[in-house]
């Protein structure tokens, strides 16, 4: 278990380094820098203090070579001292992120809960009523909603609830009532996607013989659905819900911009627009970290939920024998199941029989 975790963490760090190199490299290639934009007098860049800030000049000034700038930044990343941003020279990059992240999080958590609360029952209902009006109706509605961008939906909500009914504030960030519109708007597309996913996953499980077997044992339909089918079909849901949550937690550019919410999304767009290298690197790496961590958590949770994966891993963990290569082995063959993609085909679990308690 620990060895597995360690292996995953090493890979996570390597991924982060790769992301940092690619981002920094792209920034070097893109024409225009913060100072050039500032000198050109682009008004929205707020002041020219950045150009003269001694701390900045020392770190990322014209005379400093690019690789040294990169190393300086990475050193700052490790020691958690990424220095000031170009755009906001009075505060450091880490301060800006720490300030914006809770805002995004306070949108992401309720949006995620709302998504699950709606998507799971709707998906289950559509699967159980497959081929009936309830199924067609919900699938049609979901597909339509999925095609509708969240920010358009936000505008619609603003129009109805803020402008016509006057129940909610139009935009801003000053209290719980400001949460309602963005949370609902954020949840729409994921809900539609997840509900369809639950439906497909349920239908797949419903085809298995164990459903008939449980009914043949005398189970009520509802009991069989909940105890066996729903439980199993929610396991793969974790793999979708994880990245989805990461997506929500890293802020959503359009809705934050539209509704004036000071979240990570807005921070990121500002950084990108102004070529604010430290801030852009900081936010990008933070996003990457969140996604990678979510993936790691998903994999761990998957193992907890699905005993097949759990035992497959534990048998691997217990016998850390290095693969012995014989003469002409170029392919590793079918004996190595990809650990990221749990094979749920009926034939697959046969490989797992080596597990012992």
């Amino acid at each position, binding site marked *: 278990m620990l060895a597995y975790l360690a292996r995953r963490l090493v890979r996570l760090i390597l991924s982060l380094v790769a992301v940092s190199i690619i981002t920094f490299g792209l920034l070097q290639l893109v024409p225009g820098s913060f100072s050039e934009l500032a000198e050109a007098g682009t008004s929205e860049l707020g002041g020219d203090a950045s150009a003269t800030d001694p701390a900045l000049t020392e770190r990322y000034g014209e005379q400093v070579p690019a690789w040294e700038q990169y190393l300086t930044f990475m050193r700052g990343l490790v020691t958690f001292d990424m220095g000031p941003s170009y755009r906001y020279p009075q505060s450091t990059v880490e301060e800006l992120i720490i300030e914006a992240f809770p805002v995004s999080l306070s949108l992401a958590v309720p949006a995620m809960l709302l998504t699950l609360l709606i998507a799971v029952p709707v998906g289950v209902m559509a699967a159980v009523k497959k081929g009936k009006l309830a199924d067609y109706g919900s699938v049609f509605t979901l597909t339509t909603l999925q095609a509708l961008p969240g920010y358009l939906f936000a505008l619609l909500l603003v129009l109805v609830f803020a402008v016509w009914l006057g129940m909610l504030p139009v935009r801003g960030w000053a209290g719980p009532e400001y949460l309602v519109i963005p949370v609902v708007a954020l949840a729409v597309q994921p809900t539609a996607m997840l509900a369809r996913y639950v439906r497909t996953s349920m239908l797949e499980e419903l085809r298995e013989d164990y459903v*008939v*077997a449980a009914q043949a044992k*005398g189970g009520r339909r509802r009991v069989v659905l909940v105890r066996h089918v729903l439980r*199993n079909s929610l396991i793969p849901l974790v793999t979708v819900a994880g990245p989805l949550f990461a997506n929500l937690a890293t802020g959503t550019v359009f809705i934050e911009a539209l509704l004036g919410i000071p979240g990570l999304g807005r921070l990121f767009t500002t950084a990108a627009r102004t070529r604010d290298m430290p801030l852009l690197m900081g936010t990008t790496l933070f996003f990457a970290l969140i996604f990678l961590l979510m993936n790691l958590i998903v994999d761990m949770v998957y193992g907890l939920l699905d005993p097949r994966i759990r035992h497959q891993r534990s*048998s691997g963990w217990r016998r850390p024998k290095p693969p012995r290569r014989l003469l002409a082995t170029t392919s590793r063959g079918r*004996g190595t199941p990809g650990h990221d993609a749990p094979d749920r085909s009926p034939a697959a679990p046969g*490989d797992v029989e080596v597990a012992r308690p």
Partner: protein
Amino acid sequence: MSGEPLLSVRDLRVAFRDRSGAMAPAANLSVDVPANGSLAVVGESGSGKTVSMRALLGLLPATAVVSGEAHFGGRDLIGLPEPELRKVRGPGIGMIFQNAMSALNPTRTLKVQLTEHLRWHGSCDRKTAVRRAVEALDRVGIPEPDRRIRMYPFQLSGGMRQRAMIAMSIVAGPRLLIADEPTTAVDVTIQRQVLDVLKQLRDDGLAIIMITHDLGVARYFCDDVVVMKDGRMVETATMKRFIADAREPYSRKLLDAAPDIDLRVEPDQSPAPSDRNQLLQARDLVKVFHGRGGDVHAVDDVSVTVGANETVGVVGESGSGKSTLARLLMRLVEPSSGEVTFDGHDLLAARRSELHALRRRVQMVFQNPYGSLLPHATVAANIVEPLRVHHVGTPAQRRARAVELLELVGIPVHRADQYPRQFSGGQQQRIAIARALALEPQLLVCDEPTSALDVSIQAQILDLLDDLKHRLGLSMLFITHNLAVAQRLCDRVVVMASGHIVESAPSSQLFAQPQHPYTRALLAAALPVRSDPPPWQPATSIDTRSGELVEVTPQHWVRAATPVPEETP
């Protein structure tokens, strides 16, 4: 067998209502099952066997319309309200399925699955339920039941899993078991074990309805038989009379198609032509898969040859490495070590272009015909695909070749532009064979080509292959788990177990004088239709790994620790 039958089905009719409201009849059945009786429901796929049995318990989807009567325990099951019917399912009638991997929920322990319905029925508390579940596991012959009950289905071996599922259906104490192809998905030796568990249950007083397509299983297990075809009952009879004197032409056709191993063949004394041209030669092949749970020696030190115009059968149970061997021989999988030559060319050293040319001369037929055909290409396009890949002929010539091949395998030429899904399984396999023959290969590698097909279709495909073999002078490597099929078709048979060859001999000799205990166990486990099954005791573990292959008589090789004396019949 006295008085009232346990289950009495009268004019049970099942039909499925389609979207437009039209009814498609699926089954029509009238049978009696006495207490402690055993009835075989026999038929090919789509004959309505499963549908009619599930209809008894109301387990069909809502589109099914069921009518008729089915008296069980003094009540008519058809039309019984759902809550009442639920009391019959489990404590009254239990059900066993074909594939335990699917019929057991993979994410719950046996304990949950064996005890939950006892509590749904309110028959006992949790502690008693667990005790009864352990007893049930013990009854079906699972060792250490109180430890195994905490396991998940995937932690059990195939045979053990099948028994656990049987335990699940008997734990509530039913008087009738409906077994739906309980041994179709398992190996022959396990099949015998599972059937013997069911026999034991019968001795304890259960009645069993066995749905099967395998007449050998039906004969071994059942007293009475019902033959179904296209949803109709063709014949009912006692098993003895049915085997000896089936009345209906369809029943006789089924009986004729059933392949049996003939153990009484005289060993062919005429020396086999040993000067045959060796077409394919493999020496000391090894394939090791490096898995997470350690290395798996899928194929270990295997040498085979296939001569010109020779058909070699590779027989073994699942996991014996026979399919891997086929893939190694074609270099679809790189061997870990060893060598393969085809007609003098070193297949493993061959470069891309040379390999390309060599592969033209070896073609393959797979188990699942639909999976091996391109679903979005017409039949003609599927057949000419190899020609296209190897740049043979003009489009018009290829088309002509496709027509020729379709005629050869007996598919109506006017259907050349239809898609694979419009054909039945047997026809799809014919198309796959036509495709394999398109390049006029010298060697055809067939990997279980008839295992997914019904018995009568299987017989047709085997006839076709036999015919093609002689007409086209093909060599064949024929992989199968079915000894009877191997005997039917092959000149020489290689028996594999756990990645090794345990025995290899000319067909006539192998079946007349099997030498290795494993081969004997395989032969003994098979259930013939026309004769009584040979005596069989559950094989304790047979050593298939150690020892060396020794030539006991000319061309008859047996794996043995010490050389076997010449004369051991």
